[in-house]
């Protein structure tokens, strides 16, 4: 359904530390050089981009917005959350079953260093 999702950053180095750590757990790596000033995590079925907004204004957080990443298994959900906490993220809900998700899937929630809400879910239950 998605080609890409873009999130704004006000400090790309803080974002780099957080997303390099958390995306590596999921098997994705930044594919553009540091001087690009943005982060591009490309996969065969989706691309995730973090960058300062194009309009030159500060990045702001949406209330209501959540971006969910796929984790291959429960251990990956746990490792993703731990990696994010160790790399500048803020806990928004620790790893565990989520009764609102299909099949009681295991998920975990974090805020990235800019406050964007992200989560990782193993939907393979």
């Amino acid at each position, binding site marked *: *359904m*998605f*080609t*890409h*999702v*873009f*999130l*704004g*950053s006000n400090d790309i180095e803080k974002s780099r530390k957080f997303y390099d750590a958390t995306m590596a757990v*999921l098997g*994705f790596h930044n594919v553009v050089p540091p001087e690009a000033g943005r982060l591009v*995590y490309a*996969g065969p*079925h*989706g*691309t*995730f981009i973090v*960058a*300062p*907004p194009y*309009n030159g*204004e*500060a*990045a*702001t*957080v*949406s*209330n*209501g*917005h*959540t*971006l*969910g*990443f*796929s984790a*291959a298994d429960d251990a990956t959900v746990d490792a993703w959350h731990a990696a994010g906490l160790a790399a500048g993220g803020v806990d928004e809900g620790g790893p565990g079953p989520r009764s*609102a998700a*299909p099949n009681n899937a295991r998920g975990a929630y974090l805020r990235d260093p800019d406050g*964007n809400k992200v*989560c990782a*879910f193993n*939907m393979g239950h």
Partner: protein
Amino acid sequence: MSMFTHVMVGTNDPDKARAFYDAVFGALGIPGMQAPNGALWYGNPEAREAMFAVVAPRDEQPACHANGGTIGFKAQSAAQVDAWYAAGMANGGSDEGPPGPRDWGIPLYVAYLRDPDGNKLCALFMTGEPGEAS
């Protein structure tokens, strides 16, 4: 496996959001449903593909859009990008860049809209992929 499980955006007016998203997802051939808690979900839950949701924020504070946030939806043809944009404009969306070719290293056909709550969206067709309208 898609990189994403789901993307959720907030709304302050679920009826307006439903009119808009039913129209734009209809143009992409993606079905929608309403969960018991009122959230709108789009996609095929049986397909184990990514889903999109529109909700009133759980913290009961007003929904607001991000600056710097964009969600890109996959279209199967340039004509589908055109239809997506037209459906959105006719159902409460606002123009953020009309349909047309772009070249970001790979040739693309893209249109941009804001939903009724200001969330920035685009529909994107990778020109030359199978399914291109001839």
